[in-house]
């Protein structure tokens, strides 16, 4: 069964450093998303991406965050200057219209 692949599975970074989280969505999917889940809290929407541009973003997705689809397969989330409160599990997901979302296995980001 097709999968959404995320790398790395775990990243530890120092506060203030830039991180890039990588995702390879399912090849025939057209819509891509990033969500995060702080330990013990709800899954939260960050951003959706379609046709090479952001279609929607949440209040969490401020100027420190950016997304990119640098080639035909990768979809990345960059956090420019990490803060302690950015520590969370970050999920990438992809979808086709009128169907549910396929999530990747996540990247656990720990900011120290």
């Amino acid at each position: 069964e097709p999968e959404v692949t995320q790398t790395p599975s775990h990243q530890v970074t120092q506060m203030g450093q830039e991180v890039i989280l990588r995702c390879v969505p399912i090849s025939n999917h057209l819509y891509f998303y990033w969500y995060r889940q702080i330990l013990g809290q709800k899954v939260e929407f960050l951003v959706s991406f379609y046709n090479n541009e952001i279609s929607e973003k949440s209040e969490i997705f401020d100027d420190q965050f950016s997304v990119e689809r640098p080639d035909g397969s990768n979809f990345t989330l960059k956090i420019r200057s990490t803060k302690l409160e950015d520590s969370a599990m970050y999920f990438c997901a992809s979808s086709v219209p009128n169907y549910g979302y396929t999530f990747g296995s996540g990247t656990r980001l720990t900011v120290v």
Partner: protein
Amino acid sequence: EDKVVQSPLSLVVHEGDTVTLNCSYEVTNFRSLLWYKQEKKAPTFLFMLTSSGIEKKSGRLSSILDKKELSSILNITATQTGDSAIYLCAVDPYTNAGKSTFGDGTTLTVKP
């Protein structure tokens, strides 16, 4: 602000029992309600519900949406230990598929 409330927050049953998980929502311009199963890491898509009163079924799992009551239930019959997981409910607004609002989840524990 969109809101999703799940109940109960946790549930312990024995193998063979039938369980009903509840989800209620308040969302502007409702598009769809989604159920996911979350074991250890990534949410796994179970059902997408858009029309009231139509049951979706997959094996021992089934779900139905009541748009008048702004709620949905997820039923699991003949539970097995492998059903132990967090069950997440999420709703999507009509204008922005993927901008899901998630509930806190119901933690189901199935004992042998």
